[in-house]
């Protein structure tokens, strides 16, 4: 499957973006501590029905980006700048109650840990119906068969019984399916998935990813996939944004990015994925160091200390994100040679 077409009603190219994030900057300002910029001028677009990946290590700002768009960052202790325009409305400046109206209806989100993300003392069914009651003005009674239908659709066996079950009675995969059912209950136009498979077993991961892919294709929902796992991106995303230290360092369509990664960080991420088709005994190459080694973006490339091919400029000047005509973008002074 390629990045474009294959879905019904996908006249995507040339569409207005569904979500357009511009210069998103999130700064945590905690009392008695230096302000910390977690997201530093991130811009990207999501077109209707498209799947966009945000990829990076933990601490790169990908989750904060999604929470900022959803308006779910804690009320105090942070500053959010920039815009996130969704169907013509800037979500970041939207009044609280207006945003409440949109969450769950227009934009939904699923989270990393399905157990802790479900309310332990409320039955699964109720946690689905409450979304329908809220956004579709359904009565609880009317919402119950719909919830049953949803559970069935996300592949939960015996949905009638599961409606009254509590989260602890479900397996990890089932819980994530239930969360997906809640998120998709009102047929949102955008779904943000924040590491939806990280807490699951490998076999379950594949199932959940397959399910997500199927559902968004079926319903034409746009998907923002947040992950540290390029493997997840490979099977799912049309476009991939690689984040490092709160900034996008490389962007490209999936097959182009995988075929010829240009940023040393992207190549590093790719090299650290174990491959079944790789030569036996070929060592995995981890990226040396950690995010703690980052340089400040203001006057250097944050990745320079961990980079495999730094040049002098990298520690003296801040690289800009350079766009080319083909929709690729790169923030690097000494990119890896293009292979094709």
């Amino acid at each position, binding site marked *: 499957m390629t990045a474009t077409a294959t879905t019904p009603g996908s006249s995507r190219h040339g569409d207005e973006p569904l979500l357009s994030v511009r210069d998103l900057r999130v700064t945590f300002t*905690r009392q*008695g501590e230096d302000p*910390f910029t*977690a997201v530093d001028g991130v811009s990207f677009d999501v077109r209707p029905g498209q799947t966009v990946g945000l990829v990076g290590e*933990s*601490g790169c700002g990908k989750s904060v980006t999604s929470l900022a768009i959803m308006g779910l960052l804690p009320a105090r202790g942070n500053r959010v700048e920039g815009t996130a325009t969704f169907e013509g409305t800037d979500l970041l400046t939207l009044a609280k109650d207006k945003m409440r109206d949109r969450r769950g209806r227009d934009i939904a989100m699923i989270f990393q840990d399905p157990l802790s993300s479900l309310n332990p003392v409320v039955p699964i069914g109720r946690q689905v119906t409450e979304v329908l009651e809220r956004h579709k003005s359904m009565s609880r009674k009317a919402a119950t068969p719909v919830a049953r239908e949803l559970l069935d659709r996300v592949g939960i066996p015996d949905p009638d019984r599961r409606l009254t079950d509590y989260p602890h009675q479900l397996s990890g995969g089932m819980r994530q399916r239930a969360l997906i059912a809640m998120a998709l209950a009102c047929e949102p136009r955008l779904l943000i998935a924040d590491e939806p498979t990280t807490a699951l077993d490998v076999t379950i991961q594949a199932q959940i990813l397959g399910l997500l892919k199927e559902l968004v294709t079926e319903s034409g929902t746009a998907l923002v996939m947040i992950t540290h796992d390029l493997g997840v991106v490979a099977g799912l995303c049309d476009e991939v944004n690689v984040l490092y230290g709160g900034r996008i360092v490389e962007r490209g369509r999936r097959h182009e990015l995988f075929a010829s990664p240009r940023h040393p960080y992207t190549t590093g991420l790719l090299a650290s994925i174990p491959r079944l088709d790789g030569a036996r005994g070929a060592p995995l190459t981890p990226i040396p160091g*950690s*995010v*703690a080694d980052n340089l400040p973006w203001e006057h250097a490339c944050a990745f320079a200390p961990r980079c495999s091919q730094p040049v002098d400029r990298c520690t003296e000047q801040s690289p800009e994100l350079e766009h080319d005509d083909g929709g690729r973008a790169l923030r690097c002074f000494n990119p890896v040679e293009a292979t094709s």
Partner: protein
Amino acid sequence: MTPANPMTRRKDRIDDLAATAGSDRAAAVREAGSVDEKPGVSLIASAWQRLRRSPVFLIGAAITLVFVVLALVSPLIAPHDPAANLLLDQVRPQSNPIPGPQPGYPLGADDVGRDLLSRLLVGSQQTLIVGVFATIFGLTGGMTLGILAGAFGGWVDSLVMRIVDVLLSIPSLLLAFSIAALATRPSQLTVIIAVAAVQVPIFARLLRGSMLAQRHSDHVLAARALGVTERAVVFRHMLPNSLGPVIVQSTLVLAVSIIDAAALSFLGLGNPNDRQPEWGQMLGRAQPFIYDNPHLAVYPALCIIVVALGFTLMGESLREALDPKTRR
């Protein structure tokens, strides 16, 4: 959480506190992996870092410090002998049983003409003794039982914990009253024992719980895997990590003992010998005069409240500092 018997809830609270010890390491590791990595900062060091900046802790520590210093030097700075009936001639049962403030006696005297200020000052000594020894006795008893249960396991564990459970099934103050009532000749020591006995089952549960929680924690498993002897695992790896909740509980017990000792005096179960004053005893003794001369009760009560508050503030901020959940 599988509650095990009728008193589970109270036990669970103790166990919850105990479990924080076990989770410290894991949380510290988790945290080290997240955004702001501060390698090499141990739990105690980081707790201390946070305590130093906590006004709550500093106020509590300041009160405690003043109290301890006062207890040490009060005999030297007290204007009069706290046991001497200096103003006895002013005590007239009909008209004025309590001598009021006068030159040399800024707070007046008590019902038998002893200088109130001196008694309050020197009273800090016995009060501290009650608090400290009740805590030490309670801690020692509880630790012995807890380690016994934790180390031997099996039927020793079952037996010890059943006894502990039964003791916990009596409201603690009532238990203290009952034990104090056993004393043929009530004295400061019997008060201390009664107040301490109440804490024994609490400490025992706390310690056993936190050691159990650690039995399966990674650092203990790692120590075992490295071939460290069982004894060393218990004393070098499990016990030190259980100390956090125990220290917190001790600080709170210091406050509780002083307050409980006052309640014993109030019921006539306290130390009848008041030549060496103690605040709880002074408060208990002031009952008959409380309407006409409330100051006799108010001064020792205020002292108790302030000191108990000091210990509590210290204990609460310690708990917060040692709790990995609240660490940010």
